């Protein structure tokens, strides 16, 4: 049996299939490799929810950006709302070293505003247009998704799902490090 080429052919097939399945089980589905990683963040101009203030991403160069996509109908967005607000309070309002932006997708201004009020969000919130131009330019699969953009406007990390304090702290530690070149 051990010398039969048929035995080894079948065995190599079994090993290949088991190997592929084993690899699939070890991969974290929340870590989605994006072609945008380590590349320039697509530029956009957004208008603040409930106000006329506009913001263009490219004008924020020099300051790292925490860009979060969310929606009022998204349950996981409720879980991370306080984390993002805390990051805004600590790093943006407290230290002025970060911009936190939240873009609601596939939503209405009324519902987005109501969500923001309910969760006490005070950072810059905006709404993507009906065509989803910003969502598609960032290759979104859903919400929430969060992009960590360094001071040079390069996307260094992307997270799919609700962010945790630890995840935000770890990634911002790299982005906000003194003499940071923004590289992980």
């Amino acid at each position, binding site marked *: 049996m051990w010398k039969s080429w048929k035995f080894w052919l079948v065995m190599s097939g079994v090993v290949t299939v088991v190997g592929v399945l084993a690899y699939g089980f070890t991969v974290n589905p929340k870590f989605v*490799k*994006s*072609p*945008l990683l380590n590349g320039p963040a697509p530029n956009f101009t957004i208008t603040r929810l409930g106000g006329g203030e506009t913001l263009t991403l490219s004008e924020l160069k020099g300051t790292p950006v925490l860009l979060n996509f969310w929606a009022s109908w998204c349950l996981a967005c409720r879980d991370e709302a306080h984390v993002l607000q805390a990051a805004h309070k600590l790093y943006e309002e407290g230290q002025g070293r970060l911009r936190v932006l939240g873009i609601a997708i*596939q939503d209405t201004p009324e519902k987005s505003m109501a969500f923001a009020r309910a969760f006490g969000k005070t950072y810059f919130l905006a709404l993507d247009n009906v*065509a*989803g*131009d910003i*969502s*598609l*330019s*960032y*290759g*979104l*699969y*859903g919400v929430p998704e969060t992009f960590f953009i360094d001071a040079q406007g390069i996307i260094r990390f992307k997270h799919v799902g609700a962010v945790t304090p630890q995840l935000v702290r770890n990634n911002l530690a790299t982005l906000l490090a003194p003499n940071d070149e923004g590289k992980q």
Partner: protein
Amino acid sequence: MSSKRITAAMLAGGFLLPLLFAIPAGALTDQEALEKKVRGITDQLRCPTCQGISVNDSEAAFSRQIRDKVKRMVREGQSEDQIKAYFESRYGEWILRAPKKEGLGLVLWVLPGLLMLLAGGWIVYTVRRNARVNGKDAASEAEQPLSKAELERIKRDVRLFEEEL
């Protein structure tokens, strides 16, 4: 109105009337061509939020937005390759339902055909070998002289046959 004028008016009408119908018919064809091209492209793109279906077959919000975006890009004059390249640059090769015919993707395209060729070759080889072996066996058996016992048995059978007659 003279008969000449009536004839001229009828002739002019005969030429102009089809043109009136031709304009909307042409516009409809353009729209259909656009829709067909958009369908052709969105059929090749994977719905980001669904399980294994194309953007064309999905009614998810992202799929609708991608369809609209593709339509706009086609109207702007972008080619199919340019549009696919745009979505690949945002979502990665994952967004393409068929693997690209280069690198590892080329292996995926070639491997099934190669395996079928190998399997076909193996079947032909096995069938021919078996036919050859069986043919040789039959020929070698035919070449063997009958044994005494076989001759006796044939004679006995012939005798029995004659007696029954």
